[in-house]
């Protein structure tokens, strides 16, 4: 057991997956809170203000966990990926420092005013605190996505005489087309998470016959925003997939379990990749669809894994394949669900349709799973590269840190995050049980 690289990857994967469970809710919720509070500013907005207050408390707990699990992420670039930091720091350090300067100061300064400052501020002032949190968290999202986009599709850089990367074109780097597509996709997916959580709480209160006003608002906002954002996730996902087809064709082939190059390639719905035999077992395929989705024409030739040297294949094709299919499958399911719910809501029958309320109440884990699977698709598809086409993952790990040390910290994180998860569920459960209304002792 001497392979530190695997442990470095496992630790980063575990801590980032865990961390991102919280920002995906707070980023989406920040937008919904701004919308609900804007409605609350108008005459007769009191029920909307009560609804916002409830979600701000949920936001506060999630934000706290997001902050404390986020700080280790920033430092693990240095602790575990020192080779990468040294190689690419001049470039990716730009967006990481910008995130701190432009986003984190904004968020952290106004957080306690949003969570505890309603009495201290005027109604408009408190609304502005919500806007500040929204701007801060969405800016933070952009800087992180831009950093990741550089690793996926490096632009705006040159290789210096010392072999390290340098920034050549700031605009090209910050406005990386990959970043724009990925950002739109990711932020809409975050809105879906928040919408499903809001709708689930609304469905729960409606089924329990409690907090009638709040339940109506939650269901309306959750289903409406969930449907719009869900459709946008699909549209932006298509844009991103076309970028992958153009710039990371080997990743696309692995995502699809597409082993042999072929024109008129089919889109795989279900099937198990058998990498040893180089085929897909038990495939259920829509003919020609992959060629069309990837390149816009049914006759396009989609290169399979056989078109690339094996050393450039993603190193976990099975997981990459499943991650992609789980994301796409759940995405389709969620659009269908919100579409039906929206249809019922428009006819005024959603609150009386108990089976639909049950579905909405139980569906909230889906966006979390889909978001996680989406990020796994992105990151596993990038392998074996750390910076695509330039720098391999194996080159990026810290040279002086050995496997016993990494395992120690990985196990430490497992224990800490387990306890943190228990505490989180406990506090969120209390908030849900208490429901919207005045603060409780």
């Amino acid at each position, binding site marked *: 057991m001497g392979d530190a690289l695997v442990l470095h990857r496992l630790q980063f994967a575990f801590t980032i997956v865990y961390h991102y469970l919280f920002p995906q809710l707070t980023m989406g919720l920040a937008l919904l809170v701004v919308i609900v509070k804007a409605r609350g500013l108008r005459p007769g907005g009191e029920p909307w203000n009560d609804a916002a207050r409830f979600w701000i408390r949920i936001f*506060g*707990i999630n934000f*706290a*966990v997001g*902050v*404390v*699990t986020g*700080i*280790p992420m*920033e*430092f693990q*670039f*240095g*602790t*575990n990926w*020192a080779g990468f*930091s*040294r*190689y*690419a*720091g*001049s470039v990716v*350090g*730009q967006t*990481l*420092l*910008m*995130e*701190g*300067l*432009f986003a*984190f*100061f*904004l968020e*952290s*300064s*106004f957080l*306690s*005013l949003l969570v*505890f400052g309603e*009495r*201290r*501020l005027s109604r408009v002032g408190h609304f502005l605190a919500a806007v500040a949190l929204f701007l801060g968290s969405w800016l933070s999202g952009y800087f992180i996505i831009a950093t990741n986009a550089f690793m996926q599709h490096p632009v705006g850089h040159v290789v*210096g005489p010392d072999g390290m990367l*340098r*920034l050549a074109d*700031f605009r090209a780097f910050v406005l990386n087309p990959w970043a724009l597509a990925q950002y739109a996709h990711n932020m809409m997916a975050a809105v879906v998470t928040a919408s499903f959580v809001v709708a689930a709480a609304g469905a729960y209160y409606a089924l329990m016959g409690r907090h009638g006003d709040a339940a109506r608002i939650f269901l309306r906002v959750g289903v409406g925003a969930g449907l719009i954002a869900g459709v946008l996730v699909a549209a932006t996902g298509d844009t991103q997939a076309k970028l992958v087809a153009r710039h990371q064709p080997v990743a696309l082939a692995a995502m699809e379990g597409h082993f042999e190059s072929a024109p008129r390639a089919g889109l795989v719905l279900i099937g198990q990749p058998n990498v040893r035999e180089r085929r897909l077992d038990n495939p259920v395929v829509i003919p020609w669809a992959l060629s069309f989705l990837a390149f816009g024409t049914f006759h396009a030739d989609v290169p399979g894994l056989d078109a690339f040297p094996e050393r450039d294949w993603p190193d976990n094709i099975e997981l990459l394949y499943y991650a992609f299919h789980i994301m796409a499958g759940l995405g389709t399911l969620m659009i269908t669900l919100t579409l039906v719910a929206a249809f019922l809501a428009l006819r005024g029958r959603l609150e009386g349709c108990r089976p639909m309320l049950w579905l909405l109440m139980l569906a909230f884990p889906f966006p979390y799973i889909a978001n996680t699977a989406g990020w796994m698709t992105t990151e596993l598809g990038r392998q074996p590269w750390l910076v695509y086409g330039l720098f391999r993952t194996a080159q990026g790990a*810290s*040279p*002086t*840190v050995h496997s016993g*040390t990494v395992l120690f*910290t990985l196990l*430490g994180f497992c224990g*800490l995050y387990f306890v*943190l998860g228990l*505490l989180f569920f406990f*506090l969120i459960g209390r908030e849900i049980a208490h429901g919207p209304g005045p*603060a409780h*002792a």
Partner: protein
Amino acid sequence: MVPGRRMLEIWYAIAALLFAVYATMDGFDFGAGIVSPWVARSDTERRQVLAAIGPFWDGNEVWLLAAGGSLFVAFPRVLASGISGFYFAIFLVLWCLLGRGIAIEFRSHLPNPLWRAAWDFTFTVASTLLAVFFGAAFGNLLRGVPLDDAGWFSLPLFTDFSARAPVGILDWYTILTGLFALVALAAHGAVFLAWKTDGPVGERSVRAAWRLWVTVAVLWPVVTVASHLVNPSLFPGMGRRGLAALATAVAAAGIVTVFVRLRRGGSLLAFLGSGAFLLGILGATAASFFPVMLRATGGDALSLTAYTAGGDPAGLRVALTWFAVGLPLALIYQVVVFRLHRGPATAARDGEGY
């Protein structure tokens, strides 16, 4: 156009400034955590302490991310080598920051006394350990680390505690700097609470601050002499460097202000004096240490300096442009929050505050 060497000097100053501001800002809420068991006895008093730092602690911590980010972009070799070399210590710091943040944010969600006692304990222990760790980290930088000729190193937590090779993260000198940081940040936090709280907490904070500052005044020369023993090249250049002399003067003026003002109780001016002392000693050290960033125990040729470990000056020129926009914004946000929370902090009703 600013020449490349000058650009690296500017970023050395920015990085040093950001770390010093971090120590001063997060320092006061660490300090509040350290002295909290002594100045706050009842639950209401504890909540008064938390109300005093609650709106600020998270923003204060962002200075750490900004400081780390400045190293990342400007001196990637220093960041890569330094952070991976101190691997264990960094994770201990991260875990303490995690526990501490959760303690502050979760404590008042439940009225249960055991729940609150557990978080109070976490808050104080994590604050104490963090102060010691940061002080020890500072000691490690001054003493030096065993850099190899590729610019990497790895340090165990401890060896024989002797400050001579083979060194560990903890030896007599770095433990001394750790304790100095503990006392200095406790003193800083006590002065903050003396300013921001009234009633019994405010009075106890004034008394605690007085004792702690006397200890700081005694330890400061001791640590200075020890630093000279461990790193003889640090102080000789100090007199010739205007910035170092100026920063030392600021530190001295700060400590005098603290003693003069504390006699009449807590005040903003005493707190500013305390902040000036911390900024001054850190600034003076950075100015004397320049251009070294990671000092090698195996000889000066192996040290990483601002000139040898710097990133590409052209990229830093771009970064300086947006940094000049971002820093004032960050300061404006923090000033707005301090303005909105002016006046003595009072314990909030349950569910409405920390």
